[in-house]
């Protein structure tokens, strides 16, 4: 959301506030007349005098009242807009990163040094054969997530793998994105808002 792309986002509330101010100025004498009528039923002379004065001489306080209402309304609107923009920027950044900080780690291949194919992704005959024999063990090694907890200020960390995938459902292949994570670390590390799903992340 960029209010400068669409000036109406700023202009419409400001014009609305101005229109409401003029409307209030129109009906204020009537309201004051009602107040003075109600005050006449009581023994409050001060209130009655003030209400009658305001009901009869509305032109005397129009300018300062407009300034007062506009100043207060526009400051509330600006503060509200600033808070909305702050929250939008926070949510947008966290949504893009998934958490406060996103790191890309390079793993260490377990393939024998000097062999070709595994690091570059060239699918030669020998690399396919080697891959099939190595399926039993890990092909890449990464630092344990606990290493990140040793960094000062880090409260939690989670490892996430994001890759493209084909989902086979009802005899069709659907291109999708597969995100793999360890749920133990993920739920208290990832950015999550209640409107991401109909049920909470952790019940």
């Amino acid at each position, binding site marked *: 959301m960029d209010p400068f792309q669409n000036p109406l986002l700023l202009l419409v509330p400001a014009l609305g506030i101005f229109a409401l101010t003029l409307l209030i100025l129109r009906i204020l004498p009537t309201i004051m007349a009602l107040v003075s009528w109600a005050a006449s039923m009581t023994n409050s002379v001060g209130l009655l005098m003030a209400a009658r004065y305001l009901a009869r001489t509305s032109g005397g306080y129009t300018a300062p009242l407009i300034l007062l209402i506009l100043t207060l309304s526009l400051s509330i609107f600006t503060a509200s807009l600033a808070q909305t923009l702050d929250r939008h920027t926070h949510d947008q950044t966290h949504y893009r990163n998934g958490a406060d900080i996103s790191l890309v780690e390079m793993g260490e291949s377990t393939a024998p040094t000097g062999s070709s194919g595994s690091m570059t992704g060239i699918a030669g005959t020998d690399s396919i054969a080697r891959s099939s024999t190595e399926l039993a063990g890990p092909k890449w090694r990464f630092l344990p997530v606990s290493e990140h907890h040793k960094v000062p200020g880090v409260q939690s960390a989670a490892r996430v793998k994001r890759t493209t995938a084909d989902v086979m459902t009802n005899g069709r292949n659907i291109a999708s994105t597969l995100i793999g994570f360890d749920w133990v670390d993920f739920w208290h590390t990832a950015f999550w808002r209640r409107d991401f*799903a109909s049920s909470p992340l952790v019940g």
Partner: protein
Amino acid sequence: MNNLAQTSEGILVSSDLLSQGLKIGDNLRVSVYDTEEYTTFDFKVVGVFDISPAGIPARCR
């Protein structure tokens, strides 16, 4: 997330994917092409989300 913890082969799917005829409890076969080969995983749908963190919103795709 609780369902994920209870099901080792559990998967959360987007509401967009769920509307393709899937339902909670269905088995789902997923092929992943990573580094140099295709790997196929069998999952069980345990939940649904509308928007994933660090992902593309299902409704914007």
